[in-house]
């Protein structure tokens, strides 16, 4: 069953894309730096002007109010940004299980953002995103600053989330082994076009 669909979707620097993703699927996206992967994710989250249509479940991007759409198409950018002093100020609620799954505790919500390490920021940004229950995860190198233990935790957590909530993910990763490990299907961007990645 098609869960997420792009129709003649034209993001900056790329040819128009037609793509369908089923519920529960994790699609990986690779390609050299600056080839337009992040811009594609931003366009799907409707943060940059673009052409074409995107659809999640029953709702079309152009027919959905932007805040509602962005809650469904949750983007985790490569670098996380924070606007308040404490971690807890950024979270809609506290979820001890989710925090524990990434190696944090409830006390973490009292931490000051300015004292977080880059790895902690990255994992907490994922917590912040998942608490909004997005239907589609747009992940831009979510494990770039993490050690192996944390990478395993993040991969496991996202896989579990996709199964439990019947959502889908578009996962940008520079690591070919990671792409093979987590992806149900994979794409590469080559000279502006989306081509299937061979994993033989």
């Amino acid at each position, binding site marked *: 069953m098609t869960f997420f669909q792009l129709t003649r979707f034209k993001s900056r620097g790329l040819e128009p894309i037609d793509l369908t993703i089923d519920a529960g699927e994790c699609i990986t996206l690779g390609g050299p730096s600056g080839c337009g992967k992040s811009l594609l994710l931003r366009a799907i989250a409707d943060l940059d002007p673009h052409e074409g249509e995107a659809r999640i479940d029953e709702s079309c991007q152009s027919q959905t109010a932007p805040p*509602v759409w962005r809650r469904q198409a949750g983007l985790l950018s490569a670098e996380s940004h924070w*606007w308040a002093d404490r971690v807890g100020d950024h979270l809609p609620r506290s979820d001890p299980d989710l925090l524990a799954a990434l190696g944090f505790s409830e006390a973490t919500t009292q931490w000051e953002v300015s004292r977080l390490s880059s790895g902690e920021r990255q994992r907490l940004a994922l917590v912040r*995103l998942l608490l909004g229950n997005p239907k589609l995860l747009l992940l831009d190198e979510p494990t770039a600053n993490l050690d192996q233990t944390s990478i395993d935790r993040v991969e496991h957590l996202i896989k579990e989330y996709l199964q439990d909530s019947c959502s889908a993910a578009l996962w940008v990763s520079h690591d070919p082994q990671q792409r093979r490990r987590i992806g149900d299907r994979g794409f590469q961007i080559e000279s502006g076009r989306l081509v299937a990645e061979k994993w033989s």
Partner: protein
Amino acid sequence: MELISLTPLDLSVAALLVLGLAVISWRMRLGVERRLLVAASRSVIQLTLLGLVLKTLFEQTSFLLIGGLALFMLGMAGYEVMARQERKFAGFWGMGIGTLSMFISSFSITLLALHLVVKVEPWYTPQYLIPLLGMLLGNTMSGMAIALDNLTQSAWQQRGSIEARLMLGHTWDQAIGDLRRRALRSGLIPIINAMAAAGVVSLPGMMTGQILGGSPPLEAAKYQIMILLLIAVGTGLGAIAAVSLGAFRLFDHRQRLRLDRLK
């Protein structure tokens, strides 16, 4: 009390003093004597011209002429607000935001003051309209320019956190809310400080002028109070209008942050 008219001789005494200062600057090799003399000559010429223009204007009550001058002053003020921005809005909005906000605040406050407070007939009597409008435009301008500059600068610097909030499904209004509040505060602080210091630390220029011109000090104080309060309201309303328009313009119909609209 009679107005003591200044003769050209009186003015030349002041001018001679400036000339003396220039000589001292030359002897002490400060290197500013040239600039000092040029600036002094400019102020003499510009103010004399203004006096002549106002003299002609005051002798008649042509609505079109007075309205034209008022619009010219408004346009200049709008341009000044734009010129003080480090990151201006591109195109029409660059001048549009400042001019429109100034029109909403300074113009309406001046009209209100003329109708309700001073009660002159007709309301566009130039002796009242032009100086009042000038005081309001000149003083609200800087507060608005500071507030707008603060908004665009911080939006530019904090692009990441604004977009982080958009990504989480916050509306554009929530995403820029903190920045908008901070920008407004920065624009209002100078006038708040000016009101607090008025009469204790500083003797405002208008009151000084009236007293020197022969008005009883209490009358001069009353006018000064009115002007100061109106400036505060004008600055507040103008800054709110400018910052709201600016914040609105920073997002498009799909609530995307559009910093490409700044240049």
